[in-house]
């Protein structure tokens, strides 16, 4: 076989040549050596990374302008099904290969010496990404500490579907600790109050709880993230929220920029109860105020028409947006940033 000394060409020409490669060739080329990887990186390809930790695989889905490859690790690699039966979490073994699917065609990529972290870092490197946009943890099969080491740069962390024990939640906490945003799908509060409070006290950009959760005043006062959303919150009485607002007015939760509750009440919802003892001002609907919030990591702008203004002791304003029915209400509190 005759050979062509590609790497002896000027980098600008090499880049032009490899830019003409199909994605699979490009990926294979990048795995040949560190210099080859850097050359692929220099093409300035960019992409967003989405990781799904599933029971039978760890899937890295990459969304780029020109390509959207999907990498699967451990699927059909005989990774200790017996361990799952014994209900042990498993360490992340060295993948035997990566399955990469491009346009419905699946191929195997091999790099014997690569641990999973090497694979992830390699992909982040060639797609010029510094972090994973979203990580979905939908199983507790894998050892959380190992996961935290591999996925140490995550913007949005979402999960888990099911936690078996307090240790699981500790592990979950370990994985989520480096992300900016955390979405918690399922969470059993009882017995895990301490861990729950740890999550509330972290200075995330955004925390969202998607499952029903009963909140006390102490829980609310521990919130330290900029934005917090409770999709199914419940309170023993409306007084909890009323007292939370009064604490905020006195200076609690200083980092809070937005908090939203979709909540149910055992008693009938009454606005007067919610605002009792608070100095507030009802704003006419023709006043429009613009706010921003994070929506899956992206900054989105929206406009509030009217609402109820309250003022903190340091002069900071917030607007309450309340839509109540008989036993439920959607309550949003948005702090003015200027």
């Amino acid at each position, binding site marked *: 076989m005759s*050979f062509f000394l*590609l*790497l002896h060409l000027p980098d600008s020409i090499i880049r*032009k*040549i490899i*830019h*003409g490669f199909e994605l699979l*060739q490009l990926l*294979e080329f990048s*795995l040949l050596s560190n210099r080859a990887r850097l050359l692929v990186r220099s093409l300035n390809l960019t992409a967003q990374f989405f990781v799904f930790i599933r029971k039978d695989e760890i899937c890295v889905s990459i969304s780029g302008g020109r390509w959207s490859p999907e990498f699967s690790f451990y699927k059909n690699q005989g990774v200790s099904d017996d361990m799952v039966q014994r209900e042990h979490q498993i360490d992340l073994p060295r993948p035997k290969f990566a399955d990469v699917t491009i346009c419905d065609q699946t191929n195997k990529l091999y790099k014997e010496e690569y641990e999973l972290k090497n694979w992830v870092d390699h992909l982040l490197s060639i797609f010029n990404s510094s972090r994973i946009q979203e990580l979905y943890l939908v199983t507790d099969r894998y050892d959380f500490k190992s996961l935290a080491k591999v996925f140490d740069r995550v913007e949005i962390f979402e999960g888990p579907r099911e936690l078996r024990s307090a240790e699981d939640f500790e592990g979950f906490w370990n994985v989520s600790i480096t992300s900016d945003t955390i979405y918690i799908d399922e969470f059993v509060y009882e017995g895990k109050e301490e861990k729950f409070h740890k999550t509330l006290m972290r200075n995330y950009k955004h925390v969202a709880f998607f499952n029903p959760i009963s909140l006390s005043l102490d829980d609310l006062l521990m919130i330290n993230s900029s934005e917090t959303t409770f999709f199914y919150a419940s309170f023993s009485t409306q007084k909890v929220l009323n007292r939370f607002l009064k604490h905020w007015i006195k200076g609690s939760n200083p980092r809070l920029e937005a908090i939203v509750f979709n909540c149910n009440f055992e008693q009938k919802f009454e606005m007067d109860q919610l605002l009792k003892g608070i100095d507030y001002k009802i704003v006419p609907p023709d006043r429009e105020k613009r706010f921003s919030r994070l929506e899956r990591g992206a900054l989105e702008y929206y406009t509030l028409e009217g609402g109820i203004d309250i003022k903190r002791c340091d002069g900071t304003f917030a607007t309450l947006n309340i839509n109540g029915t008989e036993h439920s209400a959607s309550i949003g509190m948005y702090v003015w940033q200027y």
Partner: protein
Amino acid sequence: MSVEPEVPIVQVEEVRENPVLYKIISSDNHVFTISEHAVKLSKTLWDLITNLGLTAENALDNPIPVENVNGKNMETIVQFCERHKYDEEEPEYTNYIREFVLPEWDRQLLSIDNEELFQLILATNYLDIQKLMDYCCRVIGDMAKDKTPEELRIIYGIPTDAEDDALERSASDSPGPSG
């Protein structure tokens, strides 16, 4: 029924052919003649011609020396430029080089051994001939088609990391010019 007006039929080639010719001397002293339209495909040569102030009258008396390109490559380059001198301008295939079809004539022209191809692409780069560069890159890129990673490593002569490290070490261990 409409009647076609009687107009003289002029062959496009006839209008185009009345070429201004330039002389180029390769590094090994071979002399080539190239038409103005063809030489314009090389940005380097055309800039040189413009800067030297060569005109139809004095072009042939002032051969342009190109010391970085040998006669063999220059012959290929002149053939290519003459072949494509009337092509319409195409967008640069920087990102999507695969989208064009390499014409058979050009594929034949570039069916040369790898060492020659290597020298040709360097010459093309020096003379800044965009279209020939695209075509050369395509031919070199096509070598990777349907190859396994290990075949890719051999075809492109890509050293392993260990080999790269060893090379770097030996380069840093070797005495410098003064030493």
